């Protein structure tokens, strides 16, 4: 850690991980209801568990983005953070808003649109905090060195804030409501968040492989170009069945298919830089995350997204467990693994110790990643059976669900394994620092082509 104010990131990472833990708890509760339907039915209905689960995800990912930005910005801009106190204040506001929303949900206080359930005043607090964050980091950038990494990152963050404003617009016409709802939801995850993802990955690769910045930054522009050229019109894959004109069927099908390209490019990018790299960075675990993130994102977003994105397929699969399968692996690969990778990279430096307890971190990586994949497979099987029985044959929804019990039990099992992986990671991040393991780092040597 070259700059003192990079340590501003630490409380962000801690809050993010605390909320991640809670997210998993609510996910387990919801998955338990799928397995034993009467579980907690009187105390906490399923919708409360689900809203808690999804909102915690979004809030902690945003806090993770902020922490990552505070960590990276001083090094990239060669400039201390404009105001560390502003950063702590803005984190406090954000964390308070998130916590207040979470508590409110348990008492039925919410707005009622999926993912945008936060009460109005919570939305305002989130906006204020995010603007403080943007001000703080943009001031740092303005005073310092501008690189493709920090420019693309800040562009992604600013645009995320701009599209967030559509969350305040709730038309009375349900079709129009849905039209703009996707301006937040889709344009975030398949648009501007990809700018954040690509630039954070680029940062990790520059640091860990030692490949020339010029090369990495050119790739970065190509990737984010592919992301927005495809992702903007790709929104059309959500406009097939909500009362929008039929031209969205060809447009949405074609452009959302192209959305696979930036995810594929990120895989090629990460592995090429890894093989080209001359530097043998001691943080093996961070390298593992930096390669795993684009790989799983390619499968979750790219392959699982493509699976149901063509309009004539989506006609049958729309709104089934197939969607839930894709949602899980895409979010996990692209954004959860990204933040976990940055934390893995940053923590040893923030704590000023050599990379420590690497083996546990890597176990956490494999346990959690395999468990998320398994969860995705079970939900996919459930979704395919559901699609066939309900959408092709026309069987009643509840009867179909009775056929899927086995898959839901397996999903719950996978969830327990995710929780185990998460505990291992938390201990690896924040637990006592040990001697450097593996010593010296002979496996996964960069430049030899072996992974």
């Amino acid at each position, binding site marked *: 850690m070259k700059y003192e104010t990079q340590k501003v990131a630490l409380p962000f990472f801690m809050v993010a991980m605390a909320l991640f833990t809670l997210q998993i708890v609510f996910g387990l509760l919801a998955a338990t209801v799928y397995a034993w339907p*009467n579980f907690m039915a009187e105390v906490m209905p399923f919708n409360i568990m689900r809203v808690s689960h999804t909102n915690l995800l979004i809030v902690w990912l945003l806090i993770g983005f902020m922490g990552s930005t505070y960590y990276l910005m001083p090094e990239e801009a060669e400039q201390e953070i404009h105001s560390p106190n502003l950063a702590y204040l803005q984190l406090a506001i954000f964390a308070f808003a998130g916590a207040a929303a979470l508590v409110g949900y348990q008492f039925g206080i919410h707005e*009622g649109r999926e993912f945008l359930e936060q009460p109005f005043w919570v939305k305002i607090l989130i906006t204020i905090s995010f603007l403080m964050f943007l001000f703080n980091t943009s001031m740092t950038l303005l005073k310092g060195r501008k690189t493709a990494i920090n420019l693309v990152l800040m562009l992604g963050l600013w645009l995320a804030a701009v599209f967030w404003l559509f969350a305040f617009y709730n038309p009375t016409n349900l079709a129009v409501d849905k039209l703009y709802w996707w301006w937040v939801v889709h344009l975030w995850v398949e648009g501007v968040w990809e700018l954040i993802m690509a630039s954070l990955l680029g940062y990790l690769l520059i640091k860990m492989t030692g490949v020339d910045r010029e090369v990495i930054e050119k790739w970065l522009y190509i990737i984010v170009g592919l992301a927005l050229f495809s992702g903007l*019109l790709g929104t059309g894959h959500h406009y097939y069945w909500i009362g929008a004109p039929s031209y969205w069927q060809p447009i949405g099908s074609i452009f959302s298919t192209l959305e696979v390209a930036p995810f594929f490019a990120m895989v090629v990018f990460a592995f090429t830089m890894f093989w080209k790299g001359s530097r043998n960075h001691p943080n093996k675990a961070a390298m593992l995350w930096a390669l795993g993130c684009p790989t799983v994102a390619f499968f979750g977003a790219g392959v699982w997204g493509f699976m149901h994105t063509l309009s004539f397929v989506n006609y049958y699969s729309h709104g089934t467990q197939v969607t839930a399968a894709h949602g899980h692996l895409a979010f996990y690969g692209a954004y959860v693994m990204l933040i976990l990778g940055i934390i893995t990279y940053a923590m040893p430096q923030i704590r000023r110790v050599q990379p420590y307890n690497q083996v546990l971190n890597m176990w956490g990586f494999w346990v959690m990643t395999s468990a998320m994949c398994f969860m995705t497979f079970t939900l996919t099987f459930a979704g395919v059976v559901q699609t066939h029985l*309900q*959408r092709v044959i026309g069987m009643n929804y*509840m009867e179909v669900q009775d056929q899927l019990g086995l898959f839901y039990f397996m999903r719950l099992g996978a969830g327990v394994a995710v929780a185990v992986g998460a505990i291992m990671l938390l201990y690896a991040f924040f637990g006592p620092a040990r001697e450097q393991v593996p010593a010296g780092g002979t496996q996964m040597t960069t430049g030899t082509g072996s992974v």
Partner: protein
Amino acid sequence: MADGLTKSAARNIFYGGSLFFFLVFAGLTAHSHWYMVNVSTDSEGLTDSVKHGKEVWEKNMCINCHSIMGEGAYFAPELGNVWERYGGHENPEAARAGISAWIRAQPLDVEGRRQMPAYDFSDEAMSSLIDFLEWTDGIDDQDWPPHPAG
């Protein structure tokens, strides 16, 4: 890859191309907005009661168990076409009575069956909610879903 391309050229393509695609997307969205208001939904039928029904829908966060037009949660049946499923196209009065009776019958308390919570709606709120569901069923959505099952 792309050795002929310089970094600044890649940057300019990114900015220019993104702006271009954004403008196309915004234009098509504006047209879709117009289309929804004038063609695919019943703007005249969007009465105060339908609007209130949407508020009831949101206030009780039905979306985190059910889906509506395929969006939402996957824990409970699709409701975008529940009006059709209850026979509203043939017999509106019976459909109203049926949907209302279902909601009033909660909680069913059947062991091993997913449970919908009980809601204590006033008659007015109930009727608005059903108006909203009826209105939603009337949206021209390219004939989705494939079966009344939802």
